């Protein structure tokens, strides 16, 4: 399987607002994908469309080769979805949640669920509503891992966790991903921890995909150019993501492979965080309007 999610001109409108529109992307399998964007950018909508919770208003989406809306019986057993609030039935004890998982999922791995609970020290007799935030997140993660899915869809999985719980959660997630060869799509608005966790990035702004690609590729494909004060024509250039002028010089963050740049510009490498921030600060900047650009080049890990 080449791609885990394939969206073509995908759009979702709530009332008169397009939460997501003209969204085309092909997410390769075996990646840990970060979906980045400010609140309201459409991250949750994208994940819910992928899980089949939402119907598209326009376009198509395929998850693991099937339509999550039309073929839920094929998609649901193979994905693990956790919403941002990590909803669980508060009155259910942990062991009852696991029993629920066993009864509703054909591929349920009871040993995995039990041993994770034991390892994390989460009491099976405790009702879900009495769990700490960190434990609750871990129970929710366990519920989806024990489904033995091919892909995880996690909406803001570490939001609201304290730094320690956050690190433990991500570490835990990465172990599970490595052990089971999972694809993961997780949304976040925190940039700092992503570089260690993720290897693929999709930036959403105002309901549209601004950029999508492998993190290494993205870092290779962006440069900061510093040169003499340029005219306003650079601001209209679609490859320019961010610009700033001082009296005598102009600094640009440009999508480029570094070739064909006129020698008057001084070319600098740029880190992931700066690239992400540049896109976030200009939600209308787009580098990847077409799905073929979102494909990863061959030979990636």
């Amino acid at each position, binding site marked *: 399987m080449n791609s885990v999610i394939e969206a073509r001109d995908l759009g979702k409108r709530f009332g008169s607002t397009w939460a997501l529109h003209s969204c085309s992307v092909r997410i390769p399998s075996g990646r840990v994908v970060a979906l980045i964007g400010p609140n309201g950018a459409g991250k949750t909508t994208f994940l*819910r469309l992928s*899980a*089949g*919770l*939402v*119907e598209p208003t326009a376009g198509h989406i395929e998850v693991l080769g099937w339509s999550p809306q039309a073929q*839920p*019986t094929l998609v*649901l*057993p193979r*994905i*693990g*979805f956790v*919403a941002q*609030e990590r*909803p*669980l*039935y*508060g*009155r*259910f004890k942990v062991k*009852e949640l696991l*029993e*629920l*998982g066993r*009864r*509703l*999922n*054909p*591929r349920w791995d009871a040993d995995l669920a039990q041993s994770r609970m034991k390892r994390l020290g989460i009491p099976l007799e405790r009702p879900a509503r009495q769990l700490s935030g960190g434990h609750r997140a871990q129970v*929710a993660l366990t*519920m989806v891992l024990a*489904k033995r899915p091919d892909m995880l869809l996690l909406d803001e999985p570490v939001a609201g966790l304290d730094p320690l719980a956050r690190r433990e959660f991500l570490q835990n997630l990465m172990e599970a991903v490595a052990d089971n060869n999972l694809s993961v799509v997780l949304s976040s608005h925190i940039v700092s921890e992503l570089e260690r966790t993720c290897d693929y990035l999709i930036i959403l702004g105002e309901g549209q995909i601004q950029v999508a690609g492998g993190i290494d590729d993205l870092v290779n494909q962006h440069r900061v150019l510093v040169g003499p004060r340029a005219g306003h024509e650079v601001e209209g250039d679609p490859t320019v993501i961010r610009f700033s002028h001082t009296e005598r010089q102009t600094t640009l963050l440009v999508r480029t492979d570094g070739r064909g740049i006129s020698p008057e510009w001084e070319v600098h490498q740029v880190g992931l965080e700066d690239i992400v921030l540049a896109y976030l600060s200009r939600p209308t900047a787009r580098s990847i309007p077409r799905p073929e650009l979102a494909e990863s080049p061959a030979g990636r890990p």
Partner: protein
Amino acid sequence: MSWVTWRQHSREAALAGSILALIAAFLVFEWIQMSSASLQLGLGSCRDNNAGTACGQALNSYMQNFFGMSVTVRYALTALPALLGVFVAAPLLAREVEQGTHTFIWTQSITRTRWFTIKVGLLAFFTVVSASALAGAVTWWHQPLDQMYGNGQWTFYEVTGPVPIAYAVFALALGLAVGSVILRTVPAMAATLLVFVVTRVAIQSWRPWFLAPMTKELPLPASDTSLRGAFEVSTPTVNSLHGVVDLVVYQPADRFWTFQAIETGIFLFLALLLIGISAWSLRHRIH
């Protein structure tokens, strides 16, 4: 899935079970009271119940003892379907969405349609079983009361036969539909109650006209027993060729089951429409 449904709603089930058990116990208790009173007063051997006779006085004291209670029982029983709609059906979808747990349960390996079908199927099954049991119990219970009502069966029209079962099924479907449209628990409960009461009152007002009523002139003072068991729609006093008479507009006793069938049909039809609405919402509205 039935295990999940049971685990999730065991509290409501226990509560509903206790309410039903209490009602059953109360009915048995009152039945014993009524039967022994009837025996004591010798009502069984009465032929002439006119006021002034010994039998009339006995019946009068019997009625004083039990009339109010029987009215209370009838009202209490007609409120039960509303409770079901408001407290069980309306929150079924609304609460899941309000707490976001629908995203949890609908991303297990079970489609939301299947989830809904099993859950509502189980609920409908228990509703029909309990409503039938209750309607049966009431039929048995009101026998001792029949003597004091001229139109015994019509008096208990709303709590015997298939009609109360249809009310319960309707209330269930209504709660589900309203909950699936409003998606917030408390407003959905309030709206369910309102729509239920309005619908019941509307159909109740229409009931006398399900079939064209019959009329009969009765000379005053009326002492005719030919209308025994009929459902009196109205009894205006009018001047006719035979002098001042009661013009009785009525539905005859033998239409009882026809009326039961008509009203059952109406409420089941409405229930079906409402289930359609919830199924549509489930598929297209909830996300």
